[in-house]
């Protein structure tokens, strides 16, 4: 029961981990990308469209599908879709100096609208009775477990039974953490987010760093959307089922104090909190809704604690949300 609860928490947490790792990379460059919910949504629907087309081209027999292609096509589609959203954001905020908050919120609206439009279109094509698309075959490739996981009892279930995107999420978070803190690129990126004028004077290309960080961050976040559809929802897409996971990912960034390594455990905690209501007996529907607030409550508590401790390292990047005009230096 406890093992099952933890596994469920991890499954729920992984999209948040992708989203917040992506957002941390973006925010370290000084971009407050509030378009993350939209970007994750676009990542999800792009993956769905990709795998839908591939499944259809293979006919009805699962044996016709190449496992590598079945995984790679949606993966690539999700990355491309999300990166394009990141490009739009970067172009508007870096090149055109648009307000970051407004751009981000607009991108969220755009992403969700686009996702719902494409989702509804696919449902139309399949002429399905239910308002959803099932990509169970593709999903089975995504949620394939390690073959020997079942033989190892609780250990296998806890550590080895997850889909590969879960492991990828953790690996990406660790790599992001390493790059940010231990490499020259990371140092340069952080300096761009902290003080772009200083970075510029030191010969760092602020525009390039902001573009690249935002696009990579978006691509990572997009994978979160894909993981949600393919692993958590077993390949079933229905409009708006993604819910407020994008906002929760942004809350997780604050919770993790802009550290991807902290975000790993944080995402599992958030997953557990989201799921706790299902494991407590005798809750009415209205109390269940109260329980769903827990991740946000925890984030607020973390905000209060960090603002009381006043440690500069725990603050967001100093230039977060500010456009950089070279002429004003």
């Amino acid at each position, binding site marked *: 029961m406890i093992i099952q609860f933890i596994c469920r928490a991890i499954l729920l947490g992984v999209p948040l981990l992708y989203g917040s790792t992506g957002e941390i990379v973006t925010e370290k460059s000084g971009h407050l990308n509030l378009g993350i919910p939209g970007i994750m949504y676009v990542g999800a629907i792009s993956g769905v469209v990709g795998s839908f087309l591939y499944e259809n081209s293979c006919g009805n027999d699962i044996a016709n599908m190449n496992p590598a292609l079945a995984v790679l096509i949606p993966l690539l589609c999700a990355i491309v879709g999300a990166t394009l959203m990141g490009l739009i954001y970067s172009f508007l905020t870096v090149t055109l100096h648009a307000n970051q908050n407004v751009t981000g919120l607009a991108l969220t609206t755009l992403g969700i609208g686009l996702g719902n439009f494409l989702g509804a279109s696919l449902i139309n094509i399949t002429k399905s009775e239910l308002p959803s698309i099932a990509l169970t075959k593709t999903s089975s490739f995504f949620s394939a477990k390690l073959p020997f996981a079942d033989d190892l009892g609780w250990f296998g279930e806890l550590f080895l039974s997850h889909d590969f995107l879960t492991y990828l999420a953790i690996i990406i978070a660790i790599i992001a953490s390493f790059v940010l803190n231990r490499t020259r690129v990371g*140092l340069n990126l952080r*300096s761009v987010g902290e003080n772009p004028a200083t970075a510029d004077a030191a*010969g760092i290309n602020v525009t390039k760093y902001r573009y690249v960080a935002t696009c990579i961050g978006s691509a990572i976040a997009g994978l979160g959307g894909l993981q949600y559809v393919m692993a958590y929802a077993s390949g079933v897409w229905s409009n708006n089922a993604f819910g407020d996971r994008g906002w929760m990912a942004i809350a997780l960034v604050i919770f993790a104090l802009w550290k991807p390594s902290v975000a790993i455990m944080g995402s599992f905690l958030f997953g557990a909190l989201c799921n706790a209501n299902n494991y407590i007996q005798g809750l009415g529907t209205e109390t269940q809704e109260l329980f769903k607030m827990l991740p946000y409550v925890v984030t607020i508590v973390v905000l209060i604690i960090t603002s009381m401790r006043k440690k500069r390292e725990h603050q967001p990047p100093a230039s977060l949300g500010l456009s950089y005009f070279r002429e004003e230096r």
Partner: protein
Amino acid sequence: MTKQPAIELKNITKVFGKVVANKNVNLTAYRGEILSILGENGSGKTTLMNMISGIYFPDEGQIFIDQNEAVITSPKDAFTYKIGMIHQHFKLVDVFSAAENIVLGIEDGKYNLKASQDEIKKISEQYGFELDPEKKIYTMSVSEKQTVEIIKVLYRGADILILDEPTAVLTPQETEKLFSILRRMRDDGKCIIIITHKLHEVLSLSDRVSVLRKGEYVGTVNTSETSESELTEMMVGKKIDLNIERNKPHDTADRLIVNNITCVDRMGATVLDNVSFTAKSGEILGIAGIAGSGQRELLESIAGLQHLSEGEIFYLNPKTDKKENLRDKTPMQIRNLGVRLSFVPEDRLGMGLVGNMDIVDNMMLRSYSKGHSVFLKRKKPKDLAMKIIHDLEVVTPSASTPVRRLSGGNVQKVLVGREIAASPTVLMVAYPVRGLDINSSYMIYNLLNEQKEKGVAVIFVGEDLDVLLELCDRIMVIGSGKVTGIVDGRTATKEEIGLLMTKSEKDGEENAND
């Protein structure tokens, strides 16, 4: 041994729009020497140096480095010519350590912070810096930050160093330390160019002085063969009297009594700690201290703009002879008692004037409550504006020009003029000559002296210790929000004040116990 020219400028001209910032400037700096570039604000010193360091590109003329023509189009190009500039405003990332800031942007080689730290320690030892490479910038003092900036350019291998007003933020002791480091670098064969407008520094540090006036090159003299008055004449173009008239205060009476005030800022830090002093009518009380030691909070407390956690401020009203506690009064009531604050913050406009409004409207900011109808009456403020423009020689196209378009010095004149026009009984001024040329500075000093003669209690927060010592009757020194000493302006020395400025809290207690 003849000295090698490290850098030569030939007929450099730079124009911004219609303003000629530099016109036909010729300059040579040799290896193994310290060259001072002297000039008033707006004389084009910084523009000239920015062209050497790649921030601007000259419109005309050539730059030669080691006798070869050099084209410097970006700060990166400047690095390749081994030119390093230390800007007046530091370019550092606060949450990074010293070492991280120093290696930022260097692209060659492996990223190895440990090795860099060793290299930094080596440079520090070579020239006598004291720096912990792992210390975070936001925990550093201004002088430490400057050290980081200097090591940053040395780390990149610079052998031509340009320092823009390096002593503006340092105490006399820190300045002396910096100078000895610069001399050591000179002896090491580096070429050092220092931009300044402080004459005594020029004389004590540099080997040669080049003077600029209004963008034009006036000439270069050997420091050993010149004098303060000759340099001033070169700088200003005419002889001026550098002595401030200081009469003995007469008919003094206590005007403002500050008793043990303590003030805590929003972050929970104590910015004023148990401050007590008395300001007397008919005298100028100077306040000296490192920037950000609580000067601003002190003035704001008196003006009623700060919340005091402890202590009282009494005002002895000369009209009624009554003792009034300013702590229970609103800023408006305090102002109406005749306590006036003229604070010139670093951005000059922040407090006191509204940049987008013209001079007349800015006059009305202080008199809006005098009107009795819903419509504005501009007659009186306009007269006042014209009077200030005329009396203080404010350079402006008209009284209806937005204040933000005026130059820094003229903005200050408008601000100080407006406060003086209200015939105050207590006049508080902070940095009133910041950014002003010598002439305007002396005009402001004379205005303050006039107020003192009229029996006003003047509180003057200043940066330049020489001026404080020449102008003030008494000087109060504050360090980290505490009063570290009150000295007589006529007998105190600069070193004495410098020591008081840096006295740490612990020292303060020890001395108090003695």
